């Protein structure tokens, strides 16, 4: 399974007559985009705004962030099972508008979360402040139920990302990166001297605003399974998860999963990256037992020496994380877990809701309870009212001058549990 990612660097975004890429600028035909997204009968109105690095703009509440991509060569299309047929993706060539993103905003519930500041101290905590963002503001028809509202905004973001991706199909990329995934036995044969490593990715799968889809299938209805890491780069996993802004994985995170990219970087040099397992995080405890049993069984079957396990979300996924870690360690396989912390505002408390002595190699994405003051911005895209009721915010979070005092958990991607952020901690 070989995939070439062709990155087309986007350095600016602006409105214009035709949607296209010109000298590194993404030009957006606003009316055409609005009419595409407005096709959804559940939406009353759609508007589009642009937010560039350095702009005095606050986007909130953020639902999802999506990177525009397009299949240039090879089977299937982007977001298989959702926008394209369910062909197996992950081979051939895919072009990427690197540096651009679609951001969706819309108040699905009254306590909707997620802030992206394009400048100021808050911008340092979110990777999305460095992108040229096309922001979709989707307002629902009156009395639209939350489930349908969530789906409408989720699909709007994916459709817009595909729309921009299409214009990149015939462009010669600025940079091409190749990712090679061999069948297990061939991989072992090719690098017999290197330790074998796999990646176990845990997917949020609990219910409304807590869901993830794999080839269009609701992850809570899946058993732990094997997936090619390059399939993820073509959008095999998408996010329907928009609670816990700091440590939810947006679709952008999935497409650019840094664990996968780092494993590929060292593949064939320091270790042999032989495969990837995805497993869910359900509410029912017997589901957690079953899924972690299967993740451990698959890791053992692959015959690996070590695995990296990444988590998604707060609270009960800590139990899935520890179950996965413990059961895989019990198979004689070393583990490293990637998580984040809710260690209290002073950072001194036990950070996870579960623990085990076998979880002795941990990468943290930072403490989500840490408090930050975000100064006012000239422009708000979305709805500012939920900030007073955002996770990590509180009644009175929003000050009269427009500044906000919040915990880091309010900022989209601040303590990401794939490590797609800058916060961490080191032990000496």
């Amino acid at each position: 399974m070989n995939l070439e990612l062709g990155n087309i660097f986007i350095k600016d975004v602006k409105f214009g007559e035709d949607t296209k890429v010109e000298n590194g600028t993404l030009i957006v035909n606003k009316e055409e985009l609005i009419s595409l997204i407005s096709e959804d009968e559940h939406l009353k109105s759609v508007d589009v705004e642009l937010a560039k690095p350095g702009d005095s703009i606050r986007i909130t509440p953020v639902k999802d962030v999506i990177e525009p991509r397009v299949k240039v060569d090879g089977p299937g299309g982007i977001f298989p099972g959702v926008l394209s047929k369910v062909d197996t993706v992950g081979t051939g060539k895919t072009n990427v508008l690197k540096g651009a993103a679609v951001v969706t905003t819309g108040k699905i519930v009254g306590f909707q979360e997620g802030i992206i500041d394009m400048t100021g101290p808050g911008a340092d905590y979110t990777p999305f402040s460095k992108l040229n963002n096309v922001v979709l503001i989707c307002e629902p028809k009156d009395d639209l139920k939350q489930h349908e509202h969530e789906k409408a905004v989720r699909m709007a973001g994916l459709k817009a990302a595909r729309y921009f991706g299409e214009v990149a199909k015939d462009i010669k990329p600025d940079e091409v990166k190749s990712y090679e995934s061999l069948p297990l036995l061939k991989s072992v044969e090719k690098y017999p001297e290197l330790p074998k490593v796999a990646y176990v990715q845990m997917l949020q799968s609990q219910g409304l605003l807590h869901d993830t889809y794999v080839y269009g299938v609701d992850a809570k209805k899946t058993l732990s399974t094997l997936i090619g890491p390059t399939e993820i780069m073509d959008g095999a996993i998408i996010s329907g998860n928009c609670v816990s802004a700091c440590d939810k994985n947006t679709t952008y995170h999935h497409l650019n999963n840094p664990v996968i990219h780092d494993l590929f970087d060292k593949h064939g040099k320091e270790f042999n990256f032989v495969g990837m397992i995805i497993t869910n995080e359900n509410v029912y405890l017997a589901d957690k037992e079953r899924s972690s049993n299967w993740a451990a069984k698959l890791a053992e079957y692959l015959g690996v020496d070590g695995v990296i396990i990444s988590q998604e979300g707060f609270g009960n996924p800590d139990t899935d994380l520890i179950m996965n870690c413990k059961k895989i360690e019990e198979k004689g396989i070393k583990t490293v877990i990637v998580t984040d912390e809710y260690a209290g505002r002073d950072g001194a408390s036990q950070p996870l809701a579960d623990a085990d002595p076998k979880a002795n190699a941990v990468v943290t994405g930072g403490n989500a309870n840490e408090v930050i003051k975000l100064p006012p911005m000239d422009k708000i895209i979305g709805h500012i009212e939920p900030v007073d009721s955002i996770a990590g915010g509180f009644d009175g979070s929003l000050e009269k001058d427009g500044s906000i005092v919040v915990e880091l958990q309010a900022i989209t991607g601040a303590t990401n549990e794939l490590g797609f952020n800058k916060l961490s901690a080191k032990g000496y």
Partner: protein
Amino acid sequence: MKEIIITNNPLVKEELEKIIEVEYYNTDYMEILKKVRDRIHKGHKLLTHPLSGSVKPNETPYKSIMVSMDKGDLDTDSLITIENSIHTAKKFIEDLKTPDWSEEILFDFQTIDLTLIKNAIK
């Protein structure tokens, strides 16, 4: 296995009591965790994770947890999970109390809690 849902969410009572045993209490989040802990000491088994959902314990006022109707010997795994959950919830609530939400937001929290527990009904 027969199950009981212990909840302070009126929407869970309204929507689910026809299909499953629901014990409703007009109380707060922490009290629901404690009621479940007491049940575990009496030999009921914990069936859903007490910290279901990524909505924080000092954010949502609602909690619904499923335990077994049958009683047996004390299940230590259940006990460890509920005690860890109480410890985690306390950490949040001590730092910051749950705000007084508007009716509209309360209904959203009820809806989220309902979908989380509904997905656990087999």
